[in-house]
């Protein structure tokens, strides 16, 4: 009889426990897809872009009405968490962070330091750490989060996807997630770089659904360049080329394109299909010396002008030119970083690994040492294929 009673007792206790801890129905959630942080006086201005499910998802359930697919709520508070909780005065449902795709840091916050704002996001359990972190360049995060987008109705999803895609196909953007940012922030031998997001076009027009009916969007969100940090403070921007050089050096480039000019007026474009990069810092004669090794594999993607592609000499020439060009891209970004005295490449980390004793001596003022660090860049560029055509059309035309 005792045996029978035990499960019954357990079941009775279960009934008492059905307070349904942490239970949230899907339609009781305000799914927050992006968070923006700006500065407003000495307070933080938090913008949360909340999905309006009925408008985003097709089919029934949404009901009629031409509402915006997202709603952006704003609150000002001294701390981020406070601001988020205060937002419940405006939102009809509980804000849910599990599906946040983008964290947008306003330029003013970045200039003052991002360490403070990242703490809450790292600490709170509800955030998944697979969202991207970008810096709003030349505008405020709240403006970025008030812009509607075409095709992808959810602007945060649009930003997420286009960063993902461009990081795959276009070298200047870099995907940085929370864990990477935090580890770079705390590492003494490496400073973070975040991709910058810009807002082009008419900002006010881009905020209303009506304007989305035009074919060219009134305003568009796009990535351009990257934000360079020294510790947690924004010190400057890499332009497209410097970002590209930075990404080559870091091995972030998965695929991109680049062309060189032929002295006779043609152009050859290489489509990068694979890259591999290594950064090393060694101590020579008591002085540290950095080196960047980059291996690039590419196909010929475009050949303009009267160039003999089938000639191995042309390929050799193209490879050498490309090596030089990529090398100079990398050098230019290193020069910029040296100017700002911020080691975003991780030469310090490399030194720490290869020469921990020496590192211990220079760790304190590594930024100063980095500014004078001689860096050698070695690029190995290889052409694999020339595509499905042999000679350029212009060449064939002449013959």
């Amino acid at each position: 009889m005792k045996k029978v009673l035990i499960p019954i007792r357990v079941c009775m206790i279960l009934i008492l426990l059905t307070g349904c801890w942490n239970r949230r129905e899907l339609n009781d959630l305000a799914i927050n897809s992006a968070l923006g942080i700006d500065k407003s006086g000495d307070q933080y201005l938090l913008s949360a872009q909340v999905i309006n499910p009925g408008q985003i998802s097709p089919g029934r359930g949404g009901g009629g009405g031409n509402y915006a697919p997202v709603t952006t709520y704003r609150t000002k508070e001294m701390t981020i968490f406070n601001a988020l909780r205060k937002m419940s005065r405006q939102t009809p449902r509980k804000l849910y962070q599990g599906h946040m795709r983008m964290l947008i840091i306003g330029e003013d916050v970045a200039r003052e330091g991002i360490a403070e704002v990242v703490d809450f996001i790292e600490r709170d359990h509800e955030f998944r750490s697979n969202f991207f972190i970008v810096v709003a360049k030349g505008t405020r995060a709240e403006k970025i989060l008030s812009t509607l987008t075409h095709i992808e109705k959810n602007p945060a999803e649009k930003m997420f996807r286009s960063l993902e895609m461009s990081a795959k196909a276009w070298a200047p953007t870099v995907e940085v997630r929370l864990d990477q940012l935090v580890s770079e922030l705390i590492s003494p031998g490496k400073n973070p770089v975040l991709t910058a997001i810009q807002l082009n076009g008419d900002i006010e027009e881009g905020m209303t659904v009506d304007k989305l009916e035009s074919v060219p969007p009134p305003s568009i969100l796009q990535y351009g360049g990257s934000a360079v940090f020294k510790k947690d403070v924004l010190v400057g921007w890499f332009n497209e080329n410097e970002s590209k050089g930075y990404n080559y050096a870091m091995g972030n480039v998965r695929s991109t394109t680049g062309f060189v000019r032929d002295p006779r007026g043609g152009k050859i474009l290489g489509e990068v299909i694979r890259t591999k990069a290594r950064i090393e810092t060694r101590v020579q004669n008591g002085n540290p010396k950095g080196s960047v090794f980059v291996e690039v594999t590419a196909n010929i993607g475009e050949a303009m002008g009267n160039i003999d592609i089938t000639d191995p000499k042309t390929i050799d020439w193209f490879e050498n030119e490309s090596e030089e060009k990529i090398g100079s891209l990398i050098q230019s970004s290193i020069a910029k970083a040296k100017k700002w005295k911020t080691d975003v490449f991780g030469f310090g980390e490399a030194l720490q690994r290869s020469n921990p004793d020496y590192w211990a001596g220079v760790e304190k003022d590594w930024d100063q040492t980095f500014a004078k660090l001689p860096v050698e860049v070695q690029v190995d560029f290889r052409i694999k294929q020339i595509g499905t055509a042999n000679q350029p059309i212009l060449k064939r035309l002449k013959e």
Partner: protein
Amino acid sequence: MRGFFHKDNQQRKENANGLDTSLSKNIERIQEIFYHSSDLIIREIQIGKTEPIKAGIIYIEGLADLPSIHDYIMESLMLDMDETNRKQQNYFDFIKQQVLTIGDIAYISDFDSLIKAILNGGAVILLDQQAQGIHAKAKGWKDRDISEPHSQTLVRGPREGFTETFSTNTSLIRRKIKLPDLCLETYTIGRMTQTEVGIMYIKGTAGEHIVQEVRKRIRSIDMDGVLESAYIEEMIQDHSLTPFPTIYNTERPDVVAAALLEGRVAILTQGTPFVLVVPALFNQFYQSPEDYYHRADISTLIRLLRLLALFIAFLGPSLYVAITTFHQEMLPTPLPVGLAAQREGIPFPAFVEALLMETTFEILREAGIRMPRAVGQAISIVGTVVIGDAAVNAGLASPAMVIVVSITAISSFIIPSYDMSISIRILRFLIMALASSFGLFGIFVGIFALVLHLCSLSSFGVPYTAPFAPFIVSDQRDALFRFPQLGLMFRPHLIRRTKKKHSTFFNPTS
């Protein structure tokens, strides 16, 4: 109504069981015993010309075969009897030796066996001045023909199924296994129903301890009536406090034959086409006889598919409820957004929604079974409309929930054993409750408890979860996978008595 067999013991003793020498007294007694039932036929005749003697033929209308009584008993006795052949014998010996042209006869000297004989469809011949009777086995009642079993249908495989008649059923098995070692032990169970229950096994192949155990449990059954093998099942099963069946039942002779060859024991019951097979292990319930009638690779994949369906049937709604109410972050972003859009305006929590739809489906299913065939169509139409569209349009359920409930329902039909399917259906609701209060944590706690429970079960001494726990490597050949026949040379480890099956294979190279 307590029948003759246990009429008050005292009366029984007084009436000493032996037949009387007077025919009229005997007949009177029989009529008394049967309370003058109108289907009890007593035909009194006179036989013999030189020394006429009174005789009575007693049988029950409908149970005994009238043509054979007419042709082989009445005619022989009344017309064809040639008394010149009778020498010094008395009539009794003469009749049984030279007159009756019926195959199987037995002597009766007491009322107990007389009653039994009559109730089993025999005809009893009593002679005046003889305290003995002849039991002519002229059983002949209407049987159902052997037809395709309805509960387990196959694409490929034998089309015959057991019937309600005990002897037909045993013969169906004997036809498949032509072996003198195939034993049949028959017991009569049920104080009132006097049902024949047979144990069938192959001596030398079936584990002796299992046969012994079955015998012991069958003998210990004491109940008024056995109308279906389920009565037996309930009386002999190892565990009654479990939703899982620990005895397998089937309508298919080929399944029983296969089980016997593996060394299992079959229990046949008069009056039902469902034959019990013991020991029954968990893995039998998701296997289908067809697994062995198709090629091994196909069978293995289908078996795995069935297991997947078993899990869907078991966990489908629970996982949906748990993930959408507790673990929204586990889904790719567009999915929770889409689901949230569907749930806009639905007044119930996901659990109540699931419960509502599942209950509706269970009601429909039960109604589908109980409904007269003619109105079955109506049920399916109402069901489709109610579950499918109307519930969504009325805002009672979300389309996603309808999908979940449907796939769960369809999956539960894949499980070949109806008993297991019922168990899964019941447990599904428990797990749903756990899922709604604790999320995935609850589901896993539930699964843990269930696995522990499964491991505590046994069927006739064999662990229910074998060959997984205990893990028996050699039996894995026919558990989750179905190896080619070449690999199935060994009988199940815990059931068999002798290890190897007798089989040789055609070897194209030799």
